[in-house]
């Protein structure tokens, strides 16, 4: 059955096994790298497509705003800028809440979608399924509404029993709007 151990065969077997395993994994990594990247790209493309009106192509850019770096996709149709899809992360109840916020060129929210969250299942996690909560972001004009939850004297309906998550979501949208406002200002001064 099992061989007797001496230093030579122990070292030999361990080295061989490790070498073989890392070789297998290296190969597997090389083979799966493409599909993994493709899956990630598809996920973001889907998110951008969901939060912006029709566009021809996007460019991935980043900007310094509100004291940190924001990444965003600038969507163009023909020569015109359709809007921006901003990746906005705030801290929710259970951890980070990452959103993709689509904002059209005139500064109105087109739609939002959750990229990743670690909110409580059945409570805060509803931020990505609750229809009423999600619908209120569509076409939201920041000049008409106060971007705070009703508990904080704002205009946003929070998810029942998940005020902290709703606050984080609202803040993420507000941050994204501020980023786009800054972008628009910059563009105007460049003209």
């Amino acid at each position: 059955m099992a061989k007797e151990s001496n230093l030579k065969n122990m070292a030999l077997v361990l080295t061989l096994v490790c070498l073989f395993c890392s070789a297998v994994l290296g190969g597997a990594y090389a083979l799966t790298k493409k599909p993994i990247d493709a899956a990630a790209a598809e996920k973001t493309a889907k998110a951008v497509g969901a939060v912006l009106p029709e566009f021809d192509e996007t460019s991935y850019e980043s900007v310094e705003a509100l004291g940190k770096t924001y990444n965003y996709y600038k969507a163009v149709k023909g020569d015109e800028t359709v809007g921006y899809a901003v990746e906005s992360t705030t801290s929710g109840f259970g951890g980070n809440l990452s959103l993709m916020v689509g904002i059209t060129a005139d500064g109105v929210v087109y739609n939002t979608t959750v990229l990743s969250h670690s909110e409580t299942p059945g409570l805060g996690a509803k931020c990505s399924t609750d229809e009423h909560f999600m619908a209120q972001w569509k076409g939201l004009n920041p000049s008409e509404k106060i971007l705070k939850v009703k508990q904080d004297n704002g205009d946003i309906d929070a998810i029942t029993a998940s005020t902290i998550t709703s606050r984080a979501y609202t803040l993420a949208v507000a941050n994204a709007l501020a980023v786009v406002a800054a972008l628009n200002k910059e563009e105007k001064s460049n003209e």
Partner: protein
Amino acid sequence: MEYFLIIISAIFVNNIVLAQFLGICPFLGVSNKLSTATGMSGAVCFVITLSTLVTWLINHYLLEPFQLEFLQTIAFILVIAALVQMVEIILKKISPSLYQALGIFLPLITTNCAVLGVAINVVTKQFTFGGEPHMLNLAESLVYAFATSLGYGLAMVIFAGIREHLALNDVPKSFKGVPIALVTVGILAMAFMGFSGMVK
């Protein structure tokens, strides 16, 4: 201030056993008596902190520069296994009394998912702790690992205390042993949920 938040969060809010479900096997296995529970907690505390230090360094200076992050799992588990073995040998030599106290628990720790779990979490997850989301630096990682293991110890000691009393009670036959223990942990977890949301 941030270190304080990390500590509170890791011990109470995101307690490793009761909220993150890590290290359950030894948690159920050795919590029959208060004395073994403290012994195990001590050993876990020691190994988690040490292995987080080593795996953080390996990840930062070896895996990341060469883009070998996909080898994380295999590298970390080897490091942890080797580390546990080394700690065992060193303890035996320099502090026989400590070895007496922790020795029997050490081999069990390699397969304690809390150790690997914390090591992986620390290098892959972004944490917030009141500020902006960010990856933990070395000092924060160590504080987080240490505090997490304290949380492990806390849950373990509380549970062992309850279980010592439980053993004296008349429990229905089918519930004897692990089932009643699980239900008890459930109630304990409910108590710890009271902390949730305290530190974001």
